[in-house]
């Protein structure tokens, strides 16, 4: 395995939740992050994405600290952003514009949009979409941006069974070459693709 492909957390401590002195390494593959509410799953993903400063420790992709290669990480948040007037297609275009080196072509975008049943809503503002549809817009943007590290926060909450199957199938295509972290409470749908599980818990 190439050392440059590893995501390393060293003695990571976060301001929220109970992540203290966490050290682990993630190779390419699908890794689940599980644990009770408020334990720090979302905070961990946000820290890896650079959206939440850690209070201690380091995050490295290969030998490079992650803040220096932020264009190699993308986060699909659990809650859609508060921009209800923005067209779904425009949000996807914008996210893709931030990942010129890794983003996939238009044919792949069309495929993802079709498989997640988003074709009808690409011209609609996010505020007009249901919670599940808005979530799928963010998932589509993340899947097509496709940088080295892809983070998904509660990706299958709110989405229908068909879309859930499609998402897991799309993730499976990436598992040999991308590091995929999924924070979730639902382990069963991922059982065929998961490489490891990081269980976060409260200190006794």
């Amino acid at each position, binding site marked *: 395995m190439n050392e440059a492909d590893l995501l390393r957390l060293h003695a990571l401590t976060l301001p929220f939740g109970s992540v203290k002195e966490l050290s682990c390494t993630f190779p390419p593959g699908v890794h689940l992050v599980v644990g009770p509410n408020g334990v720090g799953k979302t905070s961990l993903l946000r820290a890896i994405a*650079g959206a939440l400063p850690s209070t201690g420790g380091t995050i490295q992709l290969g030998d490079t600290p992650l*803040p220096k290669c932020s264009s190699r990480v993308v986060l699909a948040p659990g809650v859609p*952003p*508060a921009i209800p007037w923005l067209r779904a297609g*425009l949000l996807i275009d914008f*996210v893709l514009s931030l990942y010129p080196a890794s983003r996939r072509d238009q044919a792949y975008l069309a495929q993802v949009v079709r498989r997640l049943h988003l074709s009808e809503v690409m011209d609609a*503002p996010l505020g007009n979409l249901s919670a599940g549809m808005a979530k799928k817009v963010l998932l589509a943007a993340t899947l097509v941006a496709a940088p080295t590290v892809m983070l998904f926060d509660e990706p299958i909450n709110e989405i229908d069974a068909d879309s859930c199957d499609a998402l897991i199938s799309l993730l499976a295509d990436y598992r040999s070459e991308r590091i995929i972290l999924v924070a979730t409470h639902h382990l069963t749908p991922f059982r065929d693709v998961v490489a490891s599980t990081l269980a976060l818990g409260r200190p006794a």
Partner: protein
Amino acid sequence: MSLSYARLRQLHFRMSLADQFRGMGRTVIILLGFLGATGLLAVAEMLTVLANGLMALTYPDTAPVERLGVVLSWQLVTLGLLWSLRRVMFMQGADSFLSVLPIPERAVWRADLLIAMQCYSIMWLPLGWLLYTLWRRLPPQQALLACMSYLVMIGSGLVLNLLLLRGMYRRAGMMALPMLALMVMRPQSAAGAGALLGVALLAVIAAVRMRPARPTASQPAGHGRACYERMAVVSALVLPVSLHALRESLIVRGASLLGAWAMAMALLAGRAPSMGLATALLIGLSAMASATLYRLPALIRSTVLSRLDFLVGHRRFRWRVTLFAATLPTALFTICLGAAWATAIHALPVGASDAVLPFHLLYLYAGLFVLGALGATWPRDVMRWLIPAAHFSLTLVLLMATLT
């Protein structure tokens, strides 16, 4: 007992105001004690100026620019008043719940109008004085026509304000038309009153018949939309976030700048050109531009970053947001400085060269704008008053030096 929608809004309005001002009674009394007669005089002076301004519309020798200034001033003052009370007035906290109830649009409008009339509060004083004075000074027939014209103007202005605050800009555009009639016609003349009433009626009919804009059509269509979306992506969504999330803030800042410019126009029309007037206008307009716009870069940046917080870790995203959040207000500020310079040139005596105007003032206010923009990004409370105080004191000193 059943509770009508209008009654619910009324109750909410009263209770919210009571809640907001709870405990402030003592503060207000202490403040009034300090201000004393001076404070009361200042409020009375403002009301008298407004009343006299409205009265000036009946004079035959009032220039169109002054008429424009009076109508704009009234509209801006009342819009500012309603804007400051908008959350209480429109019961915005309950919007998401009420939007799913089958409340007729007519009931919403009736409640809006009733509460907006209450929000005008002391603004009715100059109007009362105006109507009383009209009956004393003009022959009965002219007084009747003038009163009718003013009531139509105030009513149209009220509806215009509500439409603006409700975000119905196309309808608001229609309701601005009656205001234009007052720019050219005297309210006590039969032609003026007739024109005003006719235009107001047509505007109301057009506004009522106008189909509301669909939510999905909130962005420009066709080639315009493609262009807008390209700019939105290039600007790291700074453009759409500013236009939507900061719309009210931008409207108020724009209205303040327009109000300052209208006042400058009124001064230009009412006073003889002189070096002192030109310099004072340059100082006043530059100060207004800097004081109004210096916080915008920090405001836009923080709004975009908080709305798209999942991308905050991306360095190129942060860099682009910072760049465009600074670029747009700076461009606007530069335009305002240009407009201030052009206005000051018009206030120079005939034959005077614009080289006599102190160009360094523009550098001074540009420096203050940059300092303010940088200071607004510091999370220190001291910056909340330091930069406004710097604007105020510098402008006061410069104006005193110029006018003495």
